C-alpha cells in the first residue's frame, strides 16, 4: 500500500473557513484491465470521507468510483476560529482508512 497521506489546508476568511484536502489513493474503478495480463484490476476506492471540527461532523462525503485518483475535496463552513483543529478521515472499500489533522489558519 502506498503512503496514506492526507494534506489539509484550512483557512479562515471572515467567518467562513475554507478547507481543502488532498488524499493519496489509487481510486481503481474495477473496470480497468491490466494491459499485460488482461486481468481486471479489482476496485479500490474511498467510500467515505468525514471531516470533523470540535467533534461535530461538518461534512460527510460518500464517494463512488467516479472520483479521480488522488482525490481532492474542498468545502466551506462557518463557526470556527483560528487555531481550531480540523480532522479529515477516510475509509475505503477494502477496509483501509487514514486520518489527519490540521490547524485552521
Amino acid at each position, binding site marked *: 500500500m502506498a503512503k496514506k497521506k492526507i494534506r489539509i489546508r484550512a483557512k479562515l476568511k471572515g467567518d467562513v473557513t475554507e478547507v481543502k484536502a488532498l488524499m493519496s489513493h489509487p481510486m481503481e474503478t474495477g473496470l480497468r484491465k491490466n494491459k499485460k495480463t488482461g486481468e481486471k484490476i479489482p476496485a479500490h476506492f474511498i467510500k467515505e470521507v468525514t471531516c470533523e471540527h470540535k467533534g461535530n461532523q461538518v461534512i*460527510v462525503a*460518500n464517494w463512488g468510483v467516479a472520483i*479521480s485518483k488522488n482525490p481532492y475535496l474542498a468545502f466551506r*463552513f462557518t463557526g470556527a476560529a483560528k487555531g481550531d483543529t480540523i480532522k479529515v478521515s477516510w475509509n475505503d472499500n477494502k477496509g483501509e482508512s487514514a486520518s489527519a489533522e490540521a490547524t485552521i489558519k
Partner: protein
Amino acid sequence: MKRRSFLKGTVTSSMLGVAASAGLLTPQSVLAAWPKAAFDAKTVDGGMEAALGSSSASESGDIKIKAPDIAENGAVVPITISTNMPDVDAIAVFIEKNPVPIACSYDLGATTKGFISCRVKMGKTSDLIAVVRSGGKLYSAKKMVKVTIGGCGG
C-alpha cells in the same frame, strides 16, 4: 474539554468506519452510512432516489456548476458546485453517461456552506447534474461537459 470532545469524535467515526466496512450496517440504519443502493443504481433517477430520497428535482438557477466545457482528460475533471440556498443539507453529483451515474454525494452539517469542489472521472461526453437538497426539497442544475480522450473527439 477540547481533548474530551476530540476523543469522542475519534471513537464514533472510527467505529462507524469499522462497522460500515465489515458490512454490519445496512445503509439506512445509521446516519451518513455509505449509500450502497445509490452506487448500485444504473440510472440517474435510481441513484437520486437512493441517495436523496426522491428522484423529482426542480431545475434551479441558484445552483452554479463550475466545470470545463471541454475536458481533455476525462480521468480528472475538476468540478465546483455552489449555491446560496438556505438550509442545504445534501449535495450530490451525477454524470449521466458514466457506468455508475452517481459520482458523489455529500451530507452537510448545519454550519456547512453550499459549496463543494472535487475532481471526477468521466467516461465520455455527458451531462453533469448537480442536485441540492434545501429545506427537504431537491433542486438540480445541468452542465454539458465534452470529453476528448486522446483527441479522438467527443
